[in-house]
């Protein structure tokens, strides 16, 4: 199957072009901004704000209900919306469309409002202009999620949302541009990584138009003709220069570039999902993926964290924990959980990827150094990791789809304003028999995607021994797939404290 897809890196585009772009305009068949109604709405300057307002109102409702409403998670908007609907909708939209959560991000609405009054003075420190902070934060969130059983506490959930708003305001109040989105936000990084397999991207419609462009408004912002320092419409705050932008990494779909381009030359274009992982061009605002150890580490946390997060919800995790606790005579949860995380997020990937890299070098004679080789192939795991997130979050989303109805009804009852009637607690969601095949579908899709990427990279690395390059990495993919499959068939067992008593 992979051989039938035209290989962009070989057909001339990415390696020859210093901007690493595809010159064939036919690569993109569909432009969301040209679709009637949706297109004109999104092209409107205030569309982002209009999308952000309802999401902000919902977050405020979640905070209020989380702090003051029922303490039982299944009856509280904070936990139900946050851990069932938001997460599920997020991954499904990323799969079917693109990074539209960042587009509608409520944090950015509040931050933009703040920036009307407070102008940040500092540039984000150079040593921190990478993904190492979000790598740590992402892992920390996954860890705290288990340690504090966040899903079962509306109160903690509400405070996490409040903390997020506070962090955005502090960081973007001090630092210029989109420092929070690009260098801190763990949700954003999750979206950026997942969006590499989305079917759309914000991209240039016609590169020739860019070639003759003199203003570069898409990055500089559109200026007042008489006063160059007055910005009428800001350009990309994430340092992505449209003509040289490749794929969805770091793109919040904020559409600033769309509004800024004076030639109406930026669209939301369709593309082959994951195709941006099959090549390694120089990307505007990012550089080469194969040289970004930080983004590769983010990918590792994304993929192996998907397994760890699901592992925390099935019964074998208790067996593992109590075994560790007995062997090590440790009876607090944090250190045991820390060991499990260290094993699954650090040791396991290091061993699997390290071995695969070593076998590739020894067997296929690829002319790359060991670590850069590993970094290069790590990105191939994204579809598998995303498949696992989809299977897990999709499971909660579909099986708990309708629970939002009784919880909202009961929130109105609590307010003394029962306009929606008595809560119908029997409304739950789709039956397991329907949801389970969907999960397996997601996992299979992930495997297919990862194998295609590995094959494409292998072909580029060694025309004669592509299969030898392919085999070790494909083995890693299959192992991860089998682990995911095993996890999804384990009995669910969701406990607040995972130490067996």
């Amino acid at each position, binding site marked *: 199957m992979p051989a039938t897809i035209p290989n962009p890196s070989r057909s001339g585009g990415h390696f020859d072009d210093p901007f690493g772009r595809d010159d064939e305009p036919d690569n993109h068949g569909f432009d969301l901004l040209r679709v009637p109604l949706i297109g004109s709405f999104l092209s409107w300057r205030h569309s982002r704000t209009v999308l952000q307002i309802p999401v902000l109102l919902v977050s405020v409702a979640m905070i209020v209900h989380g702090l003051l409403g029922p303490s*039982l998670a299944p009856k509280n908007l904070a936990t139900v919306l946050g851990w069932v609907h938001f997460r599920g909708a997020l991954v499904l939209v990323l799969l079917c469309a693109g990074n539209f959560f960042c587009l509608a991000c409520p944090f950015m609405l509040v931050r933009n409002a703040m920036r009307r009054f407070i102008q940040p003075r500092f540039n984000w420190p150079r040593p921190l202009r990478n993904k190492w902070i979000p790598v740590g934060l992402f892992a920390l969130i996954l860890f705290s999620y288990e340690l504090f059983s966040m899903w*079962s506490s509306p109160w903690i959930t509400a405070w996490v949302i409040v903390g997020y708003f506070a962090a955005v305001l502090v960081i973007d109040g001090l630092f210029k541009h989109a420092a929070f989105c690009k260098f801190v936000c763990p949700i954003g990084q999750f979206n950026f990584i997942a969006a590499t397999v989305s079917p759309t991207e914000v991209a240039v419609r016609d590169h020739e138009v860019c070639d003759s462009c003199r203003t570069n408004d898409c990055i500089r912002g559109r200026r007042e003709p008489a006063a160059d320092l007055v910005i009428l419409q800001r350009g990309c705050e994430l340092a992505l220069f449209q003509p040289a932008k490749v794929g969805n990494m770091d793109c919040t779909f904020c559409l600033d570039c769309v509004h800024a381009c004076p030639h109406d030359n930026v669209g939301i274009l369709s593309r082959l999902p994951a195709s941006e992982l099959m090549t390694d061009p120089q990307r505007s605002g990012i550089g080469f993926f194969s040289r970004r150890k930080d983004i590769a580490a983010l990918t590792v946390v994304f993929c192996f964290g998907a397994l760890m997060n699901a592992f925390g919800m099935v019964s074998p995790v208790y067996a593992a924990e109590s075994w560790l606790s007995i062997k090590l005579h440790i009876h607090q949860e944090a250190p045991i959980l820390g060991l499990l995380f260290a094993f699954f997020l650090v040791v396991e990937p290091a061993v699997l990827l390290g071995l695969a890299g070593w076998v590739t070098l020894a067997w296929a004679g690829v002319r790359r150094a060991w670590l850069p080789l590993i970094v290069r192939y790590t990105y191939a795991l994204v579809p598998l990791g995303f498949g696992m997130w989809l299977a897990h979050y999709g499971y909660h989303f579909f099986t708990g789809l309708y629970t939002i109805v009784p919880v909202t009804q009961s929130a109105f009852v609590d307010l003394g304003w029962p306009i929606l009637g008595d809560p119908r*607690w029997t409304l739950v969601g789709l039956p397991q028999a329907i949801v389970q095949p969907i999960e397996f579908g997601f996992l299979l899709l992930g495997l297919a995607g990862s194998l295609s990427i590995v094959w494409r990279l292998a072909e580029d690395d060694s025309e004669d021994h592509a299969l030898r390059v392919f085999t070790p990495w494909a083995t890693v993919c299959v192992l991860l797939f089998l682990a995911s499959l095993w996890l999804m068939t384990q*009995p669910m067992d969701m406990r607040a404290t995972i130490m067996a008593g």
Partner: protein
Amino acid sequence: MVNASLLLLAEALAMTACHRTRPIDDAGISIQQRITPQPPRVGPASVAIQLSDAAARPVEAVRITVEADMSHPGMSPVFAEARKEKPGDYLATLNLNMGGDWVVLTHVELPGGKKLERQMDLRGVASR
């Protein structure tokens, strides 16, 4: 509402082990609940409910329903109607369909329309 939820929270925190019978007074009525089997596991679980007044005399309810929710949101709750065994003694059977932490809610309707509700943690239901 805030106070009520704080009370519920305190109550939930106080009840670390659900198998201990635990009377809670409200309007002079005490509700004792016992869940078997202990330790709890996936499958049918019986909830025995005893209602008595301040003088320890059995109290009759018009209707008692029992609901069990997982501590994780979005999972399907299970419901059961309690039937009367003898005056003041009621029994309901819940079908716990998943391992993990559950919370059992007992809704009591007294003659005259007064309603009481009890929340009890049922931690660590073992999956088979």
